[in-house]
């Protein structure tokens, strides 16, 4: 057997590190989906009337929709009546007000994940909004941020405390009619994060959310809304893990970003949901709608994602470049191993003049993994002077995986400048042998080559995330990174 194949087979045998289940009493509602369930969710969350109406409109619309089949992914039909749409850790007190009030088991779980809130609070200055199943359990650093007028809280709290902002922006980028999964989310979403940066404020720390799916058979439908007012800046980090379970779990999230004049939003994701076992059993279905709107002139939205988990990933973080001179960026690393499938990419919609977009996508396929890049660049009629640069690279490990690229380009303004580059390469035996001849193990060689391949994306990540992402790639492919 050749060295490369051998290495890859070793890699294919590694286990999921974050697959523990935390034993915490949860409050759940019955399985299934109907108007009654939606009313229950809304009532449990003590929502104002406009929220309930919005949810119901979404639900009624959802009933008229069909699940999309155009993505290059395959899975058995999902029984939407067999999902529990709400699960919350039972808290002894109502609503924790500081870390000390949080269930110690929860905290120890975060420690297992390597994201001890206290540690983060003390050492790295990251404010964390941790979403455990459906309710946001902790938001750190709130008071410090509040001094600057920054609102960073769970979505539920935002609904209670800032209903006017929620009402104004909810659904303004991803309307409740948008697509099957986004519409479902609009009907049943249970919590998420909310962030508002006032005019001229530069958020002094990275804001971070850590999602984790714990309860069995629950779907997680979180919703994130970030609004950056004129001249503001925010960098937002999102990390995800889930315990190992044999059943597939559905995760259908929606993220909406709004950047007003000269505002900048940088959104980074490290997604490590449970990918299923070596035979492809279990794992998360990650069907996510993420979209940002550069509403104002000179605004900028930048997506960076490292997708190593989930049985199936279906997501296209996109930018609507409405303001003149606005900028959209998408940097992505997607890794599929074993029987994972990913259909991911972006949409850049150029509406304003002199709008610019950059797409850098790195797909890595190992085992029987199938990796699809799907991207659309649209230059609308009024987008004079628009420019796009796209680069899609695929790296194959072994001979049983696949890489696919579907770039769509639609240009309605002849002044547009478009560049597209694509490459597909295999980790060669020559490269591995070269590394070994210098004394490196095959495992370290593969990690090094893969990390080198992803470098352009990693350097877009905030420092601590870049380190985590490198480690995660190593873990997803083998044990460690050299």
């Amino acid at each position, binding site marked *: 057997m050749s060295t490369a194949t051998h290495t890859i087979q070793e890699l294919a045998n590694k286990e999921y590190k974050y697959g523990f289940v935390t034993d915490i009493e949860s409050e759940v509602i019955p399985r299934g989906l109907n108007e009654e369930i939606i009313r229950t969710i809304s009532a449990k969350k003590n929502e104002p009337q406009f929220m309930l109406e919005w949810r119901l409109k979404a639900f009624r619309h959802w009933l008229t929709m069909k699940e999309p089949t155009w993505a290059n992914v395959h899975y058995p039909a999902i029984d939407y009546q067999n999902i529990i749409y709400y699960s919350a850790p039972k808290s002894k007190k109502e609503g924790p007000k500081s870390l000390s009030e949080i269930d110690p088991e929860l905290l120890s779980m975060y420690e297992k994940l390597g994201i001890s809130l206290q540690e983060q609070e003390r050492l790295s200055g990251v404010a964390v909004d941790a979403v455990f199943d459906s309710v946001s359990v902790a938001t750190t650093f709130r008071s410090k941020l509040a001094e600057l007028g920054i609102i960073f809280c769970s979505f539920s709290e935002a609904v209670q405390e800032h209903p006017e902002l929620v009402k104004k922006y909810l659904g303004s980028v991803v309307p409740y009619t948008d697509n099957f999964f986004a519409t479902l989310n609009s009907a049943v979403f249970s919590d998420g994060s909310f962030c508002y940066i006032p005019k001229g404020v530069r958020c002094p720390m990275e804001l971070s959310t850590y999602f984790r799916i714990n309860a069995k058979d629950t779907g997680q439908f979180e919703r994130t809304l970030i609004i950056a007012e004129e001249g503001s800046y925010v960098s937002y980090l999102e990390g995800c893990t889930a315990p190992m379970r044999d059943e597939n779990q559905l995760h259908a999230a929606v993220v909406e970003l709004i950047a007003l004049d000269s505002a900048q939003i940088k959104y980074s994701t490290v997604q490590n949901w449970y990918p299923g076992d070596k035979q492809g059993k279990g794992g998360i279905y990650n069907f996510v709608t993420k979209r940002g709107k550069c509403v104002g002139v000179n605004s900028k939205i930048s997506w960076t994602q490292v997708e190593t988990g989930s049985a199936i990933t279906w997501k296209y973080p996109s930018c609507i470049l409405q303001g003149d001179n606005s900028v959209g960026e998408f940097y992505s690393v997607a890794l599929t191993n074993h029987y994972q499938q990913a259909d991911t990419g972006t949409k850049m919609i150029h509406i304003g003049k002199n709008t610019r977009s950059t797409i850098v996508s790195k797909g890595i396929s190992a085992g029987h993994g199938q990796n699809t890049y799907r991207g659309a660049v649209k230059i609308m009629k009024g987008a004079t002077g628009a420019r796009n640069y796209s680069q899609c690279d695929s790296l194959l490990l072994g001979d049983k995986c696949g890489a696919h690229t579907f770039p769509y380009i639609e240009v309605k303004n002849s002044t547009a400048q478009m560049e597209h580059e694509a490459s597909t390469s295999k980790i060669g035996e020559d490269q591995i042998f070269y590394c070994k001849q210098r004394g*490196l193990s095959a495992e370290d060689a593969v990690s090094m080559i893969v990390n080198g391949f992803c470098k352009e994306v990693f350097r877009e990540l905030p420092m601590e995330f870049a380190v985590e992402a490198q480690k995660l790639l190593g873990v997803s492919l083998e044990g460690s990174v050299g």
Partner: protein
Amino acid sequence: MLEIRNLCAGIGGKEILQGINLRVNAGEVHAIMGPNGSGKSTLAQVLAGRDSYEVTKGEVLFQGQDLLAMAPEDRAREGVFMAFQYPVEIPGVNNTYFLKAALNAIRKHRGLPELDAVDFLKLVRERMKLMEMDDSLIGRSVNEGFSGGEKKRNEIFHMAVLDPKLAILDETDSGLDIDALKSVAEGVNALRSKDRAIVVITHYQRLLNYIVPDFVHVLSNGRIVRSGGKELALDLEAKGYGWLEETVEAAR
């Protein structure tokens, strides 16, 4: 240091090396010459442990140990270095980072503490000075976008940092113009030492004007057909490989 006994090896069922015998001591520089297809590069690859080659007979001892039983990375960690004829590009991997990982893997194997970034950079600077190299190869990805000459110089730079006991230079002169050749040869000469053995594999004599060997061996059809001092290379230059092959045929 290195003892090759009756080594036979091939690829895809085709026998290329047909009984090589060679002994190389510390401090010596051996040149292995031969026409195309004589088995020079096969010998280098087999010694480095490329698994597409199959050893059918014979043994190789390195410092008394069975070299052929070791994995390629363990050979490297024990002190065997090969400068590649075609150095491989590794996009996105910084040359210095790569070398630091390699050196630390070697040090770990030998029970030495790993070098931190500061100590490693100190070593790199010192080696660069010894090699009279500028730092143009340092900040770039391993061999990516390097010219032919840069790639070969980078191989010798790797050798300088990793400090092997046995260095095998596989056609390090191929594709180089005379200036690049000189610069590479000066690098190698700076690394000659009484503790290190160097095996220079080359098709042409001209490299040996700059790296003067202690011994010259001529390989033909998978066998060493003639061994001698540095003057053997000059004879070959004058008379060509045909001359030797004829005398070998005549002797049979």
